[in-house]
């Protein structure tokens, strides 16, 4: 399965266009506030988002190349072995469980074993936050 060719718009985001013409943006942003009690870790912590360039509905059907592309970008980002990436499932539309499972299966299918994925559900207030922590297997 070949990932889509993506463009790196340094230092902000990655972009790719699917066969159906949908443009996606992948970006990593600092998430130091999560680990503020652990300053050394906080400097290496990033959160990850995947979003559509234009606010249009997702294409119907399954395009596995999207999964291959996103996994590829994450692997490259985590190749810098000290980085850690947190994926927090958006719950605005109550579809966080679907995102949680989709992300897990994307990674299960396309991870070459170099990335460790730790999934969890954290209760905060009245909200269950579905999240995953991704690190390189050789992360010190």
């Amino acid at each position, binding site marked *: 399965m070949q990932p889509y060719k993506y463009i*790196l*718009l*340094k*230092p*902000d*985001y*990655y972009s790719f266009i699917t066969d159906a013409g949908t443009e996606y*943006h992948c*970006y*990593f*942003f*600092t*998430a*130091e*506030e*999560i680990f*503020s009690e652990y300053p050394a870790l906080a400097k290496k912590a*990033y*959160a990850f*988002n995947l*979003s559509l360039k234009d*606010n249009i509905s997702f294409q119907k059907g399954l395009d596995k190349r999207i999964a291959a592309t996103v996994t590829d970008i994450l692997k*490259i*980002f985590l*190749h*810098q072995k000290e980085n850690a990436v*947190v994926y*927090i499932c*958006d*719950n*605005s539309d109550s579809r966080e469980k679907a995102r949680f499972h989709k992300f897990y299966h994307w990674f299960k299918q396309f991870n070459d074993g170099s990335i460790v994925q730790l999934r969890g559900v*954290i*209760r*905060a*207030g009245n*909200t269950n*936050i579905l*999240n995953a922590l991704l690190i390189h297997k050789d992360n010190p």
Partner: protein
Amino acid sequence: MSPLVKHKEFPRLKAIYFIEKAAKVKGPEKLLVALEKSKYISEALQNGLSFSDLKELGFKFATV
């Protein structure tokens, strides 16, 4: 005659807002703040703000 429609400008929150908010809570609550920040960035981009705009507000992005 079409009525005038005034669009509200998307609020520009500084990154420090989320850092200070997270500093006031402990443990799992910090993840709630991170989720709020994630949603804010996503919505800001969908509502016309650019990565440059967000960087001016203090948000930091990374690529390799």
